[in-house]
């Protein structure tokens, strides 16, 4: 950045909110020199600094890439509106936090796709960084724009903006892709040649090398590679051994507070439960654990390197981690007397928790979170959430006896086959949880019962048994929310719900095809940005964007798909097969549950990946 620009930046920083998020310089940030022969990568998080710095995946990749002598990784995030407008007015390009280099000067720029509502931010960040927004408009000197993360499992709505998608675990494929890009650029290869070579790396999808054709009704008719390098389907990459997989031993510690500002220990990846709404449970198969021994080692190094006062365990289902008790006790023994608290999120309610709970409670009595997801046993059977009312009430009873008094209950509304009876079951369950509190003897229970019931709107996602399902219309969701508002008017119970409009758009993008790229582009032109922040979200502009693109959102969100419909995401093989998903879909409609696949193999398709799964 030249001196004139940095002087203008200086003045800009003095007038924006929370400038600390735009200056870098955190403890453990890696500022590497831009030497010849080093491939430069900007890891872009398409949301604000506070969200980005809470994200484990970014820390893993940042650390992994920076450990390589021939590579470097710097960070960039979505600026808030004041900074974004300021950068434009002052003619300052969006820059990386480490060396303050404009995005356009990197060899590769990579976005993590964590949620659909961050997509407009990607377009804005490209524009702010001085990179043509559409991949077709990029020149030989522009960076190669890559993307990965959970939403890459349906990359098609972004096909016009991203040059290459990396599928599966980033530890595996990122280094290969970056080295290929860097080498190609140093050799002076044409952009098209670099992309074609990228497509030969297993797990890389280069959308420019495929064409899509549609039926008259708008559904996908065919999907064809146009380059011999392009494989179909593209198979995801899997890091089979987590103890051997790269994990950071120090992480940047933000000065300004992140949303989740703590040490995160990933104990496990994947989940065998098979909840039918859960995309992560399908995407991250097979289940892989990190050993308690390895986690103790990492925890000690991270504590020494960061000074964090809080640590949490992360996975899709920490209650299923086979060494949970040993781990929790070991961590407490090592760190409790140093004032470091341990929190255990997303515990399933059928684990044997008492031991684990009494250990956490010694350090910090935070609230407990449970996710029954549905209000009646019938509907929990439909979604294969193998949790009974008895389990829940027994576990909250134990928690109340341990001195916990705050319980959060998460539900979804709009699930397939849902009736009003299922909705009223949510209120019933909340009432019974309150009953379990009052059944705990007064001397044992803590004061201040607080039950929070949060209801999200169900979004059907690719690669789940509900990928064929229609989402409820906005009107229907609103009716259901107001029904629940009435039913949940209970003492000590708070009811939270989300705007269904956001979930509606999420549904459009989650199962969107290439045509949705037009909607995204129009919305970007209309100034949509930071759509995940309710104060910024502007539904009317989105409806206009659909109109501009000549598309109907109901086609994407509210349409039930036929069994044999070709889906945009069928071009990927993420492990589970469509046949397995359909079987599960049929079982769902019969309200029949499927056991955890550790009991016996359900033939989901993972055994096709060598060494992934015992079967």
């Amino acid at each position, binding site marked *: 950045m030249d001196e004139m620009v940095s002087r203008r930046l200086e003045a800009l920083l003095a007038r924006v909110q929370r400038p*600390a998020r735009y200056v870098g310089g955190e403890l453990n940030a890696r500022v590497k020199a831009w030497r010849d022969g080093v491939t430069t990568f900007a890891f872009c998080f398409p949301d604000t600094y506070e969200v980005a710095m809470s994200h484990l995946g970014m820390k893993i990749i940042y650390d992994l890439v920076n450990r390589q002598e021939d590579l470097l990784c710097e960070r960039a995030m979505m600026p808030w509106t004041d900074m974004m407008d300021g950068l434009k007015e002052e003619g300052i390009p969006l820059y990386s936090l480490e060396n303050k280099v404009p995005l356009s000067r990197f060899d590769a720029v990579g976005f993590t796709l964590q949620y659909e509502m961050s997509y407009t931010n990607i377009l804005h960040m490209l524009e702010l960084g001085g990179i043509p927004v559409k991949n077709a408009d990029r020149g030989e000197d522009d960076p190669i724009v890559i993307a990965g993360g959970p939403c890459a499992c349906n990359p098609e709505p972004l096909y016009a903006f991203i040059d290459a998608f990396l599928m599966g675990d980033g530890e595996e494929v990122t280094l290969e892709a970056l080295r290929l890009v860097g080498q190609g650029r140093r050799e002076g290869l044409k952009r098209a040649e670099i992309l074609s070579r990228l497509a030969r790396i297993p797990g890389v999808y280069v959308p420019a090398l495929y064409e899509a054709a549609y039926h008259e009704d708008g559904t996908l008719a065919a999907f064809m590679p146009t380059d011999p390098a392009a494989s179909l389907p593209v198979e995801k990459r899997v890091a089979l051994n987590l103890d051997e997989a790269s994990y950071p031993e120090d992480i940047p510690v933000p*000065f300004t507070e992140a949303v989740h500002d703590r040490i995160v220990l990933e104990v496990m990846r994947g989940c065998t439960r098979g909840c039918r709404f859960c995309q992560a449970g399908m995407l991250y198969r097979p289940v892989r654990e990190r050993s308690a021994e390895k986690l103790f080692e990492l925890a000690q190094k991270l504590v020494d390197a960061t000074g964090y006062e809080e640590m949490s365990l992360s996975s899709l289902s920490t209650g299923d981690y086979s060494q949970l008790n040993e781990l929790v006790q070991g961590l407490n023994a090592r760190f409790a007397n140093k004032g470091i608290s341990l929190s255990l999120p997303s515990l399933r309610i059928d684990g044997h928790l008492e031991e684990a709970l009494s250990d956490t409670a010694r350090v910090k009595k935070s609230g407990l979170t449970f996710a029954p997801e549905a209000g009646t046993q019938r509907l929990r059977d439909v979604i294969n959430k193998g949790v009974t009312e008895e389990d829940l009430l027994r576990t909250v009873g134990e928690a109340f006896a341990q001195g916990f008094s705050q319980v959060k209950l998460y539900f979804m509304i709009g699930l397939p086959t849902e009736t009003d009876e299922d909705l009223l079951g949510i209120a019933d369950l909340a009432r019974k949880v309150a009953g379990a509190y009052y059944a705990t003897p007064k001397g044992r229970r803590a004061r201040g019962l607080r039950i929070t019931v949060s209801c999200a709107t169900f979004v059907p996602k690719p690669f789940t048994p509900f990928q064929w399902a229609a989402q409820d219309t906005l009107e229907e969701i609103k009716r259901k929310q107001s029904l629940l508002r009435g039913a949940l008017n209970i003492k000590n119970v708070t009811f939270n719900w989300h705007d269904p409009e956001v979930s509606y758009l999420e549904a459009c993008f989650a199962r969107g095809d290439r045509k949705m790229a037009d909607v995204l582009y129009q919305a970007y032109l209309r100034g949509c940005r930071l759509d995940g922040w309710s104060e910024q979200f502007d539904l009317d502009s989105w409806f206009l964007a659909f109109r501009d693109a000549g598309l109907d959102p109901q086609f994407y969100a509210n349409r039930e798909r036929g069994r044999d419909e070709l889906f945009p995401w069928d071009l990927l093989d993420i492990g589970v097969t469509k046949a397995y998903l359909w079987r599960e879909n049929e079982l769902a409609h019969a309200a029949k549950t499927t056991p955890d696949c550790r009991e016996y193999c359900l033939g989901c398709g993972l055994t096709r990946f060598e060494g992934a799964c015992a079967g």
Partner: protein
Amino acid sequence: MKMLFVFRKDKDLRFIGHLDLQRAMQRALRRSGLPVSFSQGFNPHIILSFAAPLAVGITGEKEIAEIPLQLPVSPNDFLERLGKALPPGLIALEAVGQKDDAPAAMARLFAAQYTFAPRKGEEGDWQKLLDALPAFLARETIPYIRRTKSGERPDDLRPGILNLLEKNGELWATLALNQHMTAKPDQLLTSLAETAGIPVPLADTRRTALLDDRFNPLEQV
């Protein structure tokens, strides 16, 4: 015992606010392995107090904090261990061991010294600012509107300006900073620019010392 220590907050950290600084300092103390004390409660934190919060945008050359220690530590040892643990931009300069019942630095604080230097490209107006000094200091009152959390009220800046002079083209000021009277550096610049009849110039502001009521630096116990 307790330890009083002096540290620098570099220009690179001028956008880090006081709460963020407190958190960064706590984490550094945790990394240092020094025998710190924790508060009681479910969210124990390291007991640490700063003599005076530093406003965002200002560099601190000799900031002061105090911390009780559970075991005796020599000042040199303290300085070395804290120094190694501090994040880039925070530099430990000096440590002074004190008895537990020694008066708190915060209570001894009376005034602070500031230096204002013109930002590049602002030199033109700066001279006008310096030229206005005699007229400014000759004013008996310098009324301004003080903004506080509870609202706005009229106030007088003049009695809080304990000393103000030009040195090598920079502006040096000693401003009251105690429970009876506080003059803020940005208000000084604003009022001075008003007297000079120019827009408020962009300046690099440094707090160079925290002083007791005899105008000795707080670290000289």
